[in-house]
């Protein structure tokens, strides 16, 4: 009988290990500073950060597109500089920009990608990849005839053509409509189920919230935080209780004006923020106090902080 209990996350070996990575461009701009990061095999890792934080530089350095100034990167145990052939053979990259050979056909460009990675011709695999990405019917079309969404999928097909174990998706759903975005999420989950480790950068917090197992936040070239998504939300997430009043208030009664409670502009809502992790949230005393002051409410609801709010908070703290 196999052990049904999965190993704890820290026991899973790192498929990508970044040690003390730094990158300073010739201009003197320091894009990465002493970055340490472990990506675990089989996970979906979301790298978040504002524009210019170093997300793309980090990915590009791992994939061999940018030369590091210092530090070391291992991909599946292989040094990406010294053992570049073994390391790169394991990595697929989908860059942010839709860069394709406009006059080439869909099928040929995917076959070209497979050849570049030194893999023997395998028409069955290319057919599978194109079918999985709903591009099989377009295999004879020239790339310039494809829509933006199809081009985006084609970039993924090219990256998957050589059967990588690690897939980097740099802003995979930038400029993609909602429906296609959801299709892509499904596809990424399918890849992970097939054993591919996914590292994605995104501006869409909901994307990370929806898909990632772990989240890394990068700002000013430094990794600010790495944690499991749920733990991150638990740790930093705040809850909000909104009470819809029976009658408007002009101001908060002095006894209730503790800072945790706020009155909406129209005076019809009381907003109470609390730490969901605390044993005593303060909700029960608040409700008793409201009753004591004769403040009635007709409805209430609670809301958890989104990852976006957490992210903004982290970045602000990092700048402070």
């Amino acid at each position, binding site marked *: 009988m196999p052990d049904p209990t999965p190993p704890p996350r820290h026991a899973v070996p790192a498929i990508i290990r970044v040690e003390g990575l730094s990158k300073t461009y*010739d201009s003197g701009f320091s894009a990465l500073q002493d970055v340490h990061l472990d990506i675990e095999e089989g996970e979906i890792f979301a790298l978040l950060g504002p524009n210019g934080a170093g997300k793309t530089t980090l990915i590009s350095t791992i994939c061999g597109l940018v030369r590091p100034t210092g530090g070391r990167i291992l991909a599946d145990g292989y040094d990406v500089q010294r053992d570049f*052939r073994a390391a790169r053979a394991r990595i697929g*990259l989908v860059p942010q920009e839709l860069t394709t050979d406009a*006059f080439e056909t869909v099928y040929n460009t995917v076959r070209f990608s*497979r050849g*570049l*990675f030194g893999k023997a011709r395998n028409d069955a695999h290319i057919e599978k990849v194109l079918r999985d990405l709903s591009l099989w019917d377009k295999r004879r079309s020239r790339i310039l005839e494809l829509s933006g969404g199809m081009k985006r999928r084609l970039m993924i097909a090219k990256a998957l053509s050589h059967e990588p174990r690690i897939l980097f998706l740099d802003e995979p759903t930038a400029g993609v409509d909602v429906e296609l975005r959801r299709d892509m999420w499904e596809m990424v989950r399918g890849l992970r189920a097939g054993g591919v480790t996914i590292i994605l950068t995104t501006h869409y917090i909901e994307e990370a919230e929806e898909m990632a197992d772990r989240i890394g936040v990068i700002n000013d070239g430094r990794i600010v935080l790495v944690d499991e998504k749920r733990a991150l939300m638990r740790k930093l997430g705040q809850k909000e209780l909104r009470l819809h009043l029976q009658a408007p208030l002009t101001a908060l009664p002095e006894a209730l004006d503790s800072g945790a409670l706020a009155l909406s502009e129209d005076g019809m809502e009381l907003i109470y923020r609390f730490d969901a992790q605390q044993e005593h949230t303060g909700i029960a005393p608040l409700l008793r106090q409201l009753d004591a002051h004769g403040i009635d409410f007709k409805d209430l609801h609670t809301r958890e902080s989104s990852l976006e709010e957490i992210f903004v908070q982290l970045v602000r703290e990092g700048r402070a």
Partner: protein
Amino acid sequence: MNWRAVAAIYRFEMARTARTLLQSVASPVLSTTLYFVVFGTAIGSRIGVIDGVEYGAFIVPGLIMLSMLTESISNASFGIYFPRFSGTIYEVLSAPISALEIVLGYVGAAATKSLILGTLILVTARFFVDYQIAHPVVMASFLILTATTFSLLGFIIGIWADGFEKLQIVPLMVVMPLTFLGGTFYSISMLPPFWQTVTLFNPVVYLVSGFRWSFTGTADVAVGLSLGMTLFFMLLCLVTIYWIFRTGYRLKP
């Protein structure tokens, strides 16, 4: 060696040529044909014999060289510049390919195209002028050497260029004048002594002279020197390319 990657790049580049046959093959063959008609047949009939060879036959090696040089540079420079311009170079640079394999793929394809073109021009010339090839093996060697060397130069230009204008500058502003002044249409022995000396600083002189020797058996400079200079130029290009990949110049920041 990742031979599959070399083959993938080579096939990709050759397919691009096949898509643009009019521009990459038909156009240079047509323009060279016009040279044969105008200089070889029309004007050449009034010039007579140079170094014991009819003028029409005399210019055949020079015209083939002119086309080969410009097309080798154009093909190779465009081949590597366009992926840089469009951004698709990311795929080559992130693949498990060494610098040598990248060069073999791009330069090999560009040199092949030039060789096909040179052969086509050689065959086309036969319709207009009656020429002999005294040393066919040397001629083929010079063709291969020239196509490879100038494709290497084109590769360097394609990496150096940061716009389409720069891509055109070297073939049009440097190679074309050097070829015209390198004995394509005349023997350098026809020049005054001072200009004969100046001409010896033009590397194309050695190419044209050596190549012409393989046709006619006569040359402006010793054929060994021609071969040596061509190999030296190839070595210069190889050293430059080695430096490009070592430093990441315009490829990897």
